[in-house]
């Protein structure tokens, strides 16, 4: 189980002469095999949560633990799919996956899983944006991590490609129900993917609402789903205003 115990995270920028409290007193539990989506407006601390889970940053206060053991540094147990291009451009797709693979004999299997068999020997520069992210997912799956952390992996793709890749990801997830924390600010995507959806309100970032979603496959046009979507949209809208207000007061030197 992945756990946040009253975690706060602040960044200080000495050159700018100011600090930002990105997260404040966050308590959170992600259970084994759960698919958790985290949504929230820009700057509310979504990436910060993932960085803490990935061990790429440490909390200012509180504890982040995996099965009761503090996460202090990156490890192969914590697989991250980054928002930006993260494939090494000088290696072929296969080599990128192979360098991460726990079991080298499974590399081609992972490439097949994300539908890139034909492009195994291509360089990343020969792939489209969606294909690059699929390759990055194959790489992270090949690590066979305990937890899959995904920071807006399809954020830069068009809606059509995004929903295709969401479906592909679900199909992969259905095979072994690995724990996934998936950050997005796309409500439709969160509704398609998550067992639970957590909304983060900004500055300081705090979980303010959680939705439990039912069985899959989901009918997005059912009354329940439409209600939940409306509620999420209303909350997101409110957060975006809120972040605007808080921005202004922060400039006036509020704590």
């Amino acid at each position, binding site marked *: 189980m992945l756990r946040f115990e009253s975690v706060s995270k602040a960044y200080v920028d000495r050159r700018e002469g100011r600090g930002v409290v990105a997260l404040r007193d966050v308590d959170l539990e992600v259970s084994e095999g759960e698919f958790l989506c985290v949504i929230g407006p820009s700057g509310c601390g979504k990436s910060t949560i993932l960085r803490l889970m990935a061990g790429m940053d440490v909390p200012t206060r509180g504890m982040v633990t995996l099965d009761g053991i503090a996460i202090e*540094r990156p*490890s*192969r147990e914590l697989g*991250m799919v980054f928002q930006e291009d*993260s494939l*090494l451009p000088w*290696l072929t797709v296969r080599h990128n996956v192979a*360098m991460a693979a726990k079991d080298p004999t499974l590399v081609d299997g992972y490439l097949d899983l994300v539908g890139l068999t034909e492009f195994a020997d291509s360089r*990343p*520069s020969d792939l489209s944006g969606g294909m690059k992210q699929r390759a990055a997912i194959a790489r992270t799956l090949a690590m066979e991590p305990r937890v899959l952390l995904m920071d807006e992996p399809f954020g830069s793709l068009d809606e059509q490609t995004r929903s295709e890749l969401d479906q592909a990801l679900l199909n992969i997830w259905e095979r072994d129900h690995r724990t996934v924390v998936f950050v997005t600010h796309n409500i439709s995507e969160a509704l398609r993917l998550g067992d639970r959806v957590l909304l983060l309100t900004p500055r300081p970032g705090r979980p303010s609402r959680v939705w439990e979603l039912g069985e899959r496959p989901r009918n997005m046009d059912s009354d329940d789903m439409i209600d939940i979507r409306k509620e999420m949209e209303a909350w997101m809208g409110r957060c975006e205003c809120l972040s605007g207000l808080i921005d202004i007061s922060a400039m006036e030197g509020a704590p």
Partner: protein
Amino acid sequence: MSKDHRSEVDAAIDEGKGVFEISRKGRWPRYALDMVGALAIILALWSAALMYSNLTGGVAFPTPLDVGASLWGLLAGDKLLGASIYQHTIASMGRWALGYGIAVLLGIVIGLVLGTTGWLYGAGMNSTNVYQLIPGLAWIPIAILLFGIGNIATVFIIVMTALPPVVIATASGLRSVPPVYLKVADMLELGPWDRFRLVLLPSSALQVLTGLRVALGNAWRVLIAAEMVVGVAMGLGFSIFAAQGALMWTESLACIVIICLIGLLFERLVFTRIEDGMRSSLGLEG
């Protein structure tokens, strides 16, 4: 010349072709045109120098034809200051290779140290930047004090001027590896060697190459200058200087032409190719 192959494009559109050939005949490739243009500019400047020299009535300035003839003779084996032009060239290139080789090895090692140890980086880069400001020839007194007159002093001067670009390029190349690649390396728990081999080296290689290229030019220029002063008995720089002393102006200019040609050869043929090859093997094209 049909500009932009207009008629061929029109024909292809009319005939509904998808892919079509364009004629190459009668068209000079771009680089050939650039070369001819460059040559024209050089000759124009040369003519200006000729005219000026005629006006002021000094020693007759060698014409391009004079120099061409002299160059031809030298290449055919005429002796200059007791040695063939090939011996002079080999002597210079030998010093160049030695000095440059030492600078590259030393520079890469220093750059690796600066680029991988956080606390040394700032101090090291600042001092290298300051030291880079010392003009090559300012090393001459130091070289002579340390090593006396001769080959070692020349090589020392080359090393000192070729070193900073290599150090700076290596250290800053290692420092400018995109952070997301470092995160990937951390996440995969790569060992130090794999981290270097798979991440640091490939992502800084192009920048290092640029440093090597600048260093090569620095080394070549200072070599020629150093040979004029530091008292070696053979070499292109020495030839330019000694020929001028013997009032052999034409030969002096012929040696300058050779120096330019050698520089051009390395710049265009060697480095440009290495860089293109490296770009494609790093997957950076397209």
